[in-house]
């Protein structure tokens, strides 16, 4: 199986990208064949990610499934080098799950379903790329590749929201999201180039054969003191804010609700479920790993902003009338928890943050999937109009309730484990912020329960008499996500073992903690 291990990660990129390329050459009106191919690619990718995750040996830790190909020689020395550790392994699994679910809920996407699946496949390939590469050039490459398809995906298949007095068009959402994310990536880009220059200067003239963008190399150089304290203090914020934009860091989060609401269901699922995790992952993988001193100095700021995220997102969600906006702001709030957990620099908090990334990814995907099903049936997302849906769409509402209960941290579901860990970590370091975070979680309970009561229970409008649950395929996808939320909530150890091995490795770079 040594051979499999060396190409498994490459396959995670090539499977969706290859499927996307194949789809390009299929006739436009062969919808069934197109959908089947997409589903097949999704299923294979999911199976692959499960195998990879199962084969990751957490006892050994470190980077596994390692392989590298030379892409460019001197002076840039770029390697296409792959490998996953305890932090990226769960993210790869998450991407596989959400992608498969995303393909299934897009079963009835129209018109131009071919173009949709082509873009979707490349989006997924980009996301996998970010999680599995170990070279900053390619990390950035895939990061941008994941942003690129968003504009057409939202612009063409998205939906506009009418607020009564003004209209938030899908074009607006698409443009805002793209520009925000690329603006963030500019900061990351500057940071990456600064790292390269500092590393080459440290190596000195005539050492161009050694400089490069490889994470491994930069880590080693960093340990040797290539990045001075001032450099770290100056450039950590570039990564923190640059990746933070994608993670929904307050005050750069405003693209997130608008973009996610405008996006079609599968894209919201992948975007809120996985892409926002890219931001948090980037902060960990690039910022904290390479610039630990800078990270340590800036963490109080990050945890402060994360707390604002939690509170602000929850309070905003409280006042939304659109079902999807509630979920959108709840994402902002939950990503705040992730950022808080990261900023604790505590094994519990960090482990909780990574688990929360996983759990929130599945949960949000479930949220958006269910909202998508409801919207398809009722053609509205207005909470004040909906009501009593549970009488006709029992199973759908039950799925929504599971996502909601995960979101408010009910024990027995994955969100509980993650949040408890984050708060335990935060209490060790900043107890007052942890209190605020808990208050934020309490507000989550208020808006979720209020939503359930208003939109799904209570008296039913005559209009909804004809409704029924979603189609088998969509409901199957949602059921899969529900199963995972419960599984992780009841038995988080398989995930936590892997995550802890990665977190321990990361924290060993912080001697002061």
């Amino acid at each position, binding site marked *: 199986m040594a051979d499999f291990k060396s190409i498994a990660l490459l396959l995670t990129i090539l499977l969706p990208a290859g499927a996307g390329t194949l789809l390009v050459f299929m006739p436009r009106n062969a919808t069934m064949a197109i959908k089947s191919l997409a589903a097949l690619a999704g299923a294979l990718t999911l199976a692959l990610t499960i195998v990879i995750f199962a084969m990751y040996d957490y006892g050994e830790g470190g980077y596994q499934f390692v392989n590298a190909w030379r892409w460019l020689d001197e002076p840039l020395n770029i390697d296409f080098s792959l490998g996953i550790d305890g932090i990226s392994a769960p993210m790869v699994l998450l991407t596989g799950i959400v992608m498969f679910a995303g393909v299934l809920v897009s079963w009835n996407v129209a018109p131009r379903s071919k173009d949709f699946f082509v873009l979707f496949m490349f989006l997924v390939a980009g996301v996998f790329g970010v999680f599995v590469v170990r070279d900053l050039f390619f990390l950035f490459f895939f990061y941008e590749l994941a942003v690129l398809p968003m504009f*057409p995906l939202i612009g063409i298949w998205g939906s506009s929201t009418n607020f009564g007095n003004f209209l938030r068009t899908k074009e607006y959402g698409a443009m805002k999201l793209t520009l925000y994310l690329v603006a963030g990536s*500019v900061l990351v880009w500057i940071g990456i*180039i600064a790292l390269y220059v500092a590393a080459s200067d440290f190596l000195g003239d005539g050492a161009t054969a050694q400089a490069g963008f490889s994470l491994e190399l930069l880590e080693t150089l960093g340990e040797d003191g290539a990045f001075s304290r001032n450099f770290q203090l100056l450039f950590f914020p570039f990564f923190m804010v640059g990746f933070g934009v994608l993670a929904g860091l307050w005050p750069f989060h405003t693209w997130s609700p608008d973009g996610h609401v405008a996006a079609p269901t599968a894209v919201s699922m992948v975007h809120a479920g996985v892409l926002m995790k890219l931001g948090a992952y980037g902060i960990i993988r690039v910022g904290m790993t390479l610039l630990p001193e800078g990270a340590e100095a800036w963490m109080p700021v990050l945890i402060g902003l994360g707390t604002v995220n939690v509170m602000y997102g929850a309070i905003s969600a409280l006042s939304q009338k659109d079902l999807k906006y509630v979920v959108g702001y709840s994402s902002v709030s939950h990503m705040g928890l992730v950022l808080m957990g990261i900023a604790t620099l505590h094994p519990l908090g960090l482990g909780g943050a990574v688990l929360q990334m996983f759990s929130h990814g599945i949960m949000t995907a479930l949220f958006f999937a269910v909202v998508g099903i409801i919207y398809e049936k009722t053609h509205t997302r207005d909470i004040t109009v909906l009501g009593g849906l549970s009488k006709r769409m029992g199973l759908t509402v039950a799925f929504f309730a599971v996502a909601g209960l995960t979101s408010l941290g009910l024990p027995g579901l994955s969100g509980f484990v993650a949040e408890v860990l984050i708060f335990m970590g935060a209490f060790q370091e900043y107890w007052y912020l942890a209190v605020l975070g808990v208050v934020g979680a309490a507000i989550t309970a208020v808006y979720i329960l209020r939503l359930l009561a208003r939109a799904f229970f209570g008296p039913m409008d005559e209009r909804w008499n004809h409704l029924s649950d979603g189609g088998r395929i969509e409901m199957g996808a949602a059921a899969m996500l529900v199963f995972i939320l419960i599984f992780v909530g009841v038995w988080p150890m398989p995930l936590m073992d892997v995550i802890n091995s990665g977190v321990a490795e990361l924290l060993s770079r912080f001697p002061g903690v």
Partner: protein
Amino acid sequence: MTENLHLLLPEFLLASLALVVLGVDLFLPAGRKHLLAWLSVAGLAGLLALALTMLWGKDISLYGGLMKTDAYSLLFKAFFYVLGGVVILASVDFVKKHFRSPGEFYAIVLFAVLGMSVMAGSVELLTAYIALELMSFSFYIMVAYGRNNPKSNEAGIKYILIGAFSSAILLYGVSLLYGAVGVTRYDEIAAALTTAMANADSFSPTLWVGLALVLVGLGFKVAAVPFHMWAPDTYEGAPLPVTAFLSVGSKVAAFALLLRLFGEAFMPTIDQWQLLVAVLAAITMILGNVVAIAQRNMKRLLAYSSVGHVGFMLLGIAALSHIGAESLILYMVGYAVTSMAVFTALIAFFNVTGRDDVADLGGLADSHPFLAAAMAIGLFSLSGLPFFAGFTIKFYLFTAAATQGLLWLSGIAMLSSLISLYYYLMVVRQMYIEPAPAWAMEEAEDEEETAYDEPAARGKPSKLIVTVLAALTLGVIFVGIYPFPLLEAIKAATGALLGAS
């Protein structure tokens, strides 16, 4: 002095090819003029093969140091031959429809290609100037080729006036430079500058003014801000294939000249002019990209976008060094492929509709999915998104600049690149999201047989241009994901220019 004359064989044959095309034109009946295009392309292909076999690995100075045949000039020679072929192939349909004398058009394209390839090969100021003028004169004619189109005439007059004006400035700079150092060969200028730098007293202001005027003169040719004002009008008025050639060919040629001039002659004084060029680059990229947002016509939008790209290329001049020159040449190639892809898509669109406003592109994704996809890929590449050439070349260039202490300028470049994404996305939005414009709907209604749910049938672009476009699109992806072979050639060229690293 003339013993190496055979090394100029490709140039001689190219000039002959142009004359042959003119001659054959006389005997061809009006309906078969497109054969001239094939003749030109076949000739260019043959010359490319000849140049590659004959000049590969040579590094020889000709005519007592007026020209050089080295890896640098060979790379650009090959580049311009290919570019000339692509431009001719992309313009066949257009020429058939809009031009009355196609034979002369193809011949003039060939003359321009000749001028360009000599520009990259000359290592002496006056030779370079004459080559530049050969190219410019060809463009003066081509820009005004739409004889019955007032806009084309206006563009031609504007271009020739500004062109003559900038040539005068350039020549004045050259003469001042000659007055100060007494030589015109690049290597001798470099030697004189080195001596002058060592001995601060002998550094006359004449030299500075001369250098500055040369920079200004060439600034006009490449349309760097603040010398760019001719570009939008000229681009808009010129016939589309000419606009494409102008925006790609003339820019790359001028930069080939600039890079050689600065790399071989002005290198010793880099500390003196680096900041000047860097500031020029910064304002060029910012202004070009910001003003492009307000454009409603595709040609004008691409004109300003190309001004923005000139800013990026100036960044490469400011970061002149081995890595800087490498990245600049890579950028030129990547930009040329991408830009040609976008222009070819636009030409194909113009051929079937006769329109070129951004608003006219509405619904293109439904009526012509391939054109829309190719243009979207080109635009994404221009804005620097990955998988396409734009990402790789920008990453390389901005990294190169940062290693030369210009991280701040790289930062500005990335921000302008972000601005450019906005207006490129507006075009993509038009093609993919907006419905077809009213005129297209009317045309569709006129055709009775068109079913209601079918998108407006607006005719099909010819197979030829679709093939060219497909090849260019593949080129955009190729440079984006596998630039390795290209970089090997570029490294050889840089070695010839700046000496082995």
